[in-house]
């Protein structure tokens, strides 16, 4: 799962740094993730993992790090084949 997140982060995150160089728990906003790019990343994640982020996950914390994104996805894909 994290591999896919890193790939989508590199494709949609518009980061000024190499996404692969970021740690799992590193703050993506401090690394240059804008709110515009965060939305684009959310759309790509929904598409890739075939999920829909509910309203309660649409906040800065849910997308603050690769770990945070993975935690949201794990919750949404429980019972689904990952």
């Amino acid at each position, binding site marked *: 799962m994290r591999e896919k997140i890193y790939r989508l982060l590199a494709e949609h995150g518009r980061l000024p740094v190499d996404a692969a160089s970021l740690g799992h728990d590193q703050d993506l906003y401090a690394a240059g993730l804008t709110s515009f790019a965060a939305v*684009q990343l959310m759309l790509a994640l929904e598409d890739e993992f075939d999920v829909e982020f509910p309203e309660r996950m649409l906040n800065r914390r849910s997308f603050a790090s690769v770990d945070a994104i993975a935690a949201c996805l794990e919750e949404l894909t429980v019972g689904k084949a990952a």
Partner: protein
Amino acid sequence: MSSLIERAERAADVAGRHAEAVDKGGRFPHEAIAACKEARLLSAMIPVEFGGEGASMSDIAEVCAILGQKCASAAMVFAMHQIKASSLIWHGREAPWHQNFMRRVSAEQLLLGSATTEGGIGGDLRSSLCAIEAEGEVFKLTKEGCCISYGLQSDAILITARRAPDSPPSDQVMAILTKDQYTLDLTMPWDSLGMRGTCSDIFTFSAKAPAEQILPSSFADIAAQSMLGAAHLLWGSLWYGLAADAVARAQAFVRAEAKKRPGFQSPGHLRLAEVSNMLQAMRANVQQGLDRFEKAHQGGDDLASMGFVVAMNQIKTAASRAAVDICNHALLITGIWGYRNNTPYSVGRHMRDALSSQVMISNDRILSNVSNMLLMHRVETRLVG
């Protein structure tokens, strides 16, 4: 001490007496701001423990509306000061320097200015080119092409910059610098259609100060948690005051007409009912935003949510459009008497001041950001909650 509202009304009387001179001269409303300082309005929102009176955002919004009825430029200066105060209060209350600075703002009634824009980034305040250059315990900062409203009259300025020279443009911090710590080189003076008293000159800002004056939170959090909501709600409130005064003038015009020609209904009568309707919708929009803001600040997740950002942004775009439409309606009702600048029904200044609302943080930029968020955020389908 008399109530906040009574003191605001006294300051508004002063603002009203000088509104025309401020507008005609394109000068700072110094009498109105002196009256606000005299009435201790500048520290109204600061917590009691730091010398203020702990007023709520709704209390401050009411003061903005009261001032906005008399002089929109003075109301805007007051609103911008309070927006900066909100960042200081919510993000500086754990830091010793900022606690002490709040006491100074209260004791000396310091006027806070803002330097969040910069040449070369097209008005996006969540992006900076300039950076904090740390040198041991102090830092240096130079920001070019920044629009600082009442920069020359401010006692301190809250300024954004990248955290360090190697930080990306969105990794910003906010520092508070006092007048003795910075220099302002004027590059373009303010000469505008309306809001002529805000003196939103463009400067090159250079400063050197102790690093402890940088607010501990990231500017991303400051923008999302205090600045965004405070700015859009307080602007909306003063625009409401401005629009309400234009409607009051239109109503006075229609009443005078009705007394002169009993039983006669001019098209202006119907338009008055229409514009009163628009004013009611504008009031409900701002009030509902204030309620949501106050509730979000009592705890819970709303403050960090996308829905909150969308709501605050849409209050701004709706309130600014309403202000322009309402002033235009008042002009249609008062006709040539409203168009003239020297009658009791004049609404020309209101109209010119209201037009600024569409371009101070351009509605088009806000709508574009909201449209992106609406790819994720679901529209509210429940009416009551």
